[in-house]
């Protein structure tokens, strides 16, 4: 059974099958997959150990600020 509504996007290129239920589901899956990869890419860096330099710089600034 076809779905006659949804998709405000009217930019279906010619030749591309009209978006029926299966097409919508496929598009949703693809967006979901991209989302998972995107988060993974970001989290990969978040999970890296922080280089010592960061904490060193902050400690020096802290000591300077407190007049040490």
């Amino acid at each position: 059974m076809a779905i006659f509504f949804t998709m405000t996007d009217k930019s279906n290129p010619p030749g591309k099958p009209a978006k029926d239920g299966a097409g919508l589901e496929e598009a949703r899956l693809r967006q979901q997959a991209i989302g998972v990869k995107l988060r993974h890419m970001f989290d990969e860096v978040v999970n890296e150990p922080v280089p010592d330099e960061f904490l060193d710089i902050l400690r020096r600034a802290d000591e300077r600020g407190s007049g040490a």
Partner: protein
Amino acid sequence: MSGTNPPPKPPSADDNAFKKELVALIPHLRAFARTLTGDPTAADDLAQDAMMKAWDARASYQMGTNMKAWTFMILRNQFYSEKRRSWRQSQLDQEAAERTLVAVDDPESPVALDELRLALATLPEEQREALILVGAGGFAYEEAAEICQCAVGTVKSRVSRARKALQATLEKGGYARDGRAAGDAMRSILAAADRLSSVRN
């Protein structure tokens, strides 16, 4: 005048709490910087600058408000003000993107991640950052709008356009690389996402 240090300030409980929260945010600042610069070394320089700017401005931060959004805004402003000073930045962006790809030359790393990085690099900057903030950084549209200093509706439309463009690029293979058939990038993304979601905790 210039070059003199600000008067010494006694350490306060607020400073300590601020520092603790700031340290916890460093990994996120590094990740955001990496997506903006595309280059690990430049990203860490940027993240360090942003961290120090946040530290110096701690008096103007109100504890209990969203420090993550606040520091991301500082980092982003820092990035764009440096970029404005750099006349050959567009050139560098391209080179940085290439270097990043080489840098992640890990045989275990799924190909799809590289494809995604390349596809991201083809997005207009404001779309890329909006998508990263909302799609990867876990920010609400409202928070992303605050970080980018624009309207919420603008962020929404940027994210939506970015998603469409990204998908189109991945499906077409809109960037020439190794001459693989169109659609391969999307297929490997789908396969990799499948793997990742099954191991995601």
